[in-house]
């Protein structure tokens, strides 16, 4: 099925039924996954999917809809009911689509390199072989007998999507994705069975780490949880391992959003061009990273993508403002959603960062927790390792780290050189001084 033709047909039907503005998104995808454990495939899934999303403005009344029932009669009923549901609302002209001049591609598709042709040719037997090779690496671990369970995960997908808007914008893109991982459980005396997972995902299959890495990384992470427990409560230097760091950065997401600013629920309201972090702290929105997991030529409402500093040298430079909230707040739209977040790397690797800490906690992962975007307070469970005199001296778990969004980035000291590439948040290990931990 031609996705543009489908989108044009639905757009035409919605206009004919009374919609003043229409935006259509159509996505088609193909995906497969494999789980392998105990030398056999435990689960294999395959699917193809085609769904349609529709947003409407009828007499300045706004609604959004989606369906996977694309039978012609059902689609006609879907559009009619969507328009009927919209008419009973109250008007809100701020919902009108963005000016066409703001829409378009910020970069050509080839530069973003979001599609790997290998995604369409991978076969079932190749998937099996990949998981077999990773399992062989698990079996080759020196302490294999201590592994209670190891499950190999593989997933791959590809697809195309189109966006068509009544303001004249249209766009399409093709994409692919690969993911591999090992979920490993060890056993320790007393019955605890610490687990960990190595996982990496990439747009191009060739960008994934070498297969043995998935086995050794899962082992490294799980083994470091053996014998862990809470350290004494107190203030410590905190080093966040690179692939754990996005959790702390995520507390900024709500308070930076136009919706929370407009509703008066952001601790960062009125802080534009003010210092919210140490001069060492910079956070960039970079939509044009080739093969980046969050890269895009335009955002979800068709706004042309562009690189944007979020925090530069500790100073808050931009919020995430959609067209709708831009009109509500009297601000120029940036985008309602982030692309890739990037924390620029420093020069020292993780080992050197640890060596420079007198009393600290190396956080390897989080457990639960949440934040209050209005007060700025956050509290997260953590596990990791205890550092004294520049050396790892113990393993910690059942501890919480707490603080305030408006304060924690003032304590930022240094970024490491070890950027984690397999995420839409590209950050190295991060060091924060004088952070509150609670434990025993």
């Amino acid at each position: 099925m031609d996705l543009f033709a489908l989108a044009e047909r639905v757009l035409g039907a919605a206009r004919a039924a009374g919609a003043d503005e229409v935006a259509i998104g159509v996505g088609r995808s193909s995906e497969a996954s494999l789980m392998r454990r105990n030398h056999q495939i435990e689960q294999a899934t395959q699917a193809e999917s085609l769904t349609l999303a529709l947003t409407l403005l009828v007499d300045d009344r706004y609604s959004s809809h989606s369906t996977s029932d694309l039978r012609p009669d059902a689609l006609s009923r879907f559009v009619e009911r969507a328009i009927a549901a919209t008419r009973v609302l109250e008007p809100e002209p701020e919902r009108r689509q963005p000016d066409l001049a703001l829409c378009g591609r910020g970069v050509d598709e080839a530069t973003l390199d979001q599609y790997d042709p290998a995604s369409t040719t991978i076969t079932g037997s190749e998937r099996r072989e990949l998981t077999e090779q990773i399992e062989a690496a698990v079996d080759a671990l020196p302490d294999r007998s201590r592994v209670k369970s190891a499950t190999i995960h593989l997933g791959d997908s590809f697809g195309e999507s189109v966006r068509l808007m009544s303001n004249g914008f249209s766009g399409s893109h093709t994409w692919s994705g690969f993911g591999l991982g090992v979920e490993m459980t060890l056993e320790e005396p007393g019955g605890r069975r610490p687990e960990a997972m190595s996982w990496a995902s990439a747009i191009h299959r060739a960008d994934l780490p070498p297969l043995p890495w998935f086995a050794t990384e899962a082992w490294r992470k799980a083994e470091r949880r053996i014998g862990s427990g809470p350290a004494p409560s107190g203030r410590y230097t905190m080093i966040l391992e690179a692939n754990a760091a996005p959790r702390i950065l995520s507390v900024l997401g709500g308070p930076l959003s136009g919706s929370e600013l407009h509703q008066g629920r952001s601790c960062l309201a009125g802080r534009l061009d003010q210092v919210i972090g140490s001069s060492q702290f910079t956070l960039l929105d970079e939509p044009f990273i080739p093969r980046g997991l969050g890269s895009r030529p335009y955002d979800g409402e068709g706004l042309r993508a562009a690189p944007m500093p979020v925090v530069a040298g500790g100073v808050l430079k931009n919020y995430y403002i959609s067209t709708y909230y831009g009109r509500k707040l009297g601000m120029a739209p940036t985008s309602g959603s982030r692309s890739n977040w990037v924390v620029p790397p420093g020069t020292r690797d993780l080992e050197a960062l640890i060596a420079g800490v007198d009393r600290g906690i190396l956080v390897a992962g989080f457990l639960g927790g949440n934040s209050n975007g209005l007060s700025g307070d956050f509290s997260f469970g953590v596990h990791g390792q205890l550092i004294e005199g520049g050396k790892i001296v113990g393993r910690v778990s059942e501890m919480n780290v707490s603080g305030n969004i408006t304060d924690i980035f003032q304590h930022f000291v240094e970024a490491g050189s070890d950027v984690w590439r397999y995420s839409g948040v590209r950050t190295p290990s991060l060091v924060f001084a004088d952070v509150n931990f609670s434990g025993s």
Partner: protein
Amino acid sequence: MVAAFDAPPVRITAVSQVPTRYVAALGGVMSYFSSFGVSPELIRGALGVALSRGADDADLYFEHLETNSVSLSDNKVNRASTHVDLGVGVRVRVGDQVGYAYSEDLSAAAIQRAAAMAAEIAAFGKASRPVEEPGAARRLADRYPERVPWDTVPMETRVQMVRAWERRSFELDPRIRKVEVSLIDAEKRILIARPDGRLIEDHLPMTRAHIVCTAEQAGRRETGSYNLASRQGIDFYSPDRVERLCQSAVEGTAILFEAGKAPNGEMTVVLGAGSSGILLHEAIGHGLEADFNRKGVSIYADRLGQRIAPPGVTVVDDGTLPYARGTINNDDEGNPTERTVLIEDGILRSYLHDEISARHYGVNPTGSGRRESFRHVVLPRMRATYMERGGYSAEEVIGSVKRGIYCKTFSNGQVQIGAGDFAFYVKQGFLIEDGKLTQPIKDVNLIGNGPAVLAAVEMVADDLQIDEGGWTCGKDGQSVPVSQGMPTVKVGKLSVGGQG
């Protein structure tokens, strides 16, 4: 992992009218799905393909979901959403191995293509069992009859409801500056077909209401929310319940002006009746899902029949509570659901089973095989998890604590199955000083180890409540609605992650 309705983004919903509710028998199949062209021949043909390579078993899971939502913000009912999902999942089982595929196209050819993909898990080359003629579609129970179904409710009525709730919330406290309201309803129809001729169908309604208030006092702002959910039609929203919804949202916001920072470190924790069931969900429930135990990755593996909690602690996972969010008439493999006693007077009695784990352990399934949608495989999941009442009064429990905290409302939790470490986030609570609730506190993560916390349960009160909130449980990338409940309970020691 579990999260309150307001914590994660929730996929939108919407409703549209469904012209026919139940279609008369067609060729032996009496099913809602007859109107989509689903016939006995189609079912037999698809199951035949699914079993064609020698699998042990297979099933088809047809689903049609229609959801609607209306939202109010900035004093306007300014957004509506509708969502339609239609498709079928094909599962093929060989021993403990599962092949799975789905199709959004319900034509015989498309379903057979999906069945052929799922069948690839088997490689024996020829069919090992026949496919029986499907019998009449049956409903196994009727735990959530709708007096006024959502697909008969005009959109205008929903608009009037959220408008009235907004007005009432503003009336209750002059400090309220902003109110946001959303009302979501869903009607889900499923049909499960098995090779032995079983056809099980169900119609699962769901509704959730959510109010977020932002209040201002002396230049300071606070925001709070309340939500409730049920498998009911519009009659769920009785005047009393609506009043409680609005009052809880407003009072839960206003009290934050008095709240201070939570303390820090290990201390006695009293869990209030109701939504404190989140502790059971994380500390015990996930660890007793049998897939984790079959694989030996749960801290509770190999502990059936052993004492894992003090005498007096009985924990249940129940799929049969009338109208509860986690209730089901049958599980998603087509088996009856039940009330499963997990821990009886401190002794571990049962895991939660789907068919695969039940075969592994040589027991009957507990009716706990659930999936998010036709796009997902079945997993053992919780339904409504709660602790049975004890012998103390809530006042006695609180009165026994010299210094500690009392937890009242929660937003989310998480567990590590093997280590047993779990956490849950308290949105609001109180300090306990000399046996009395004193200073309100807010926003603090609590962390502990499941078996250690169970062992530290010191008192259980007689005030069991099943929470009415819109809890959603996440596991292996799948979300399912759940319920949870708790009497007031005292835990001797938990780590409190505050700043005070």
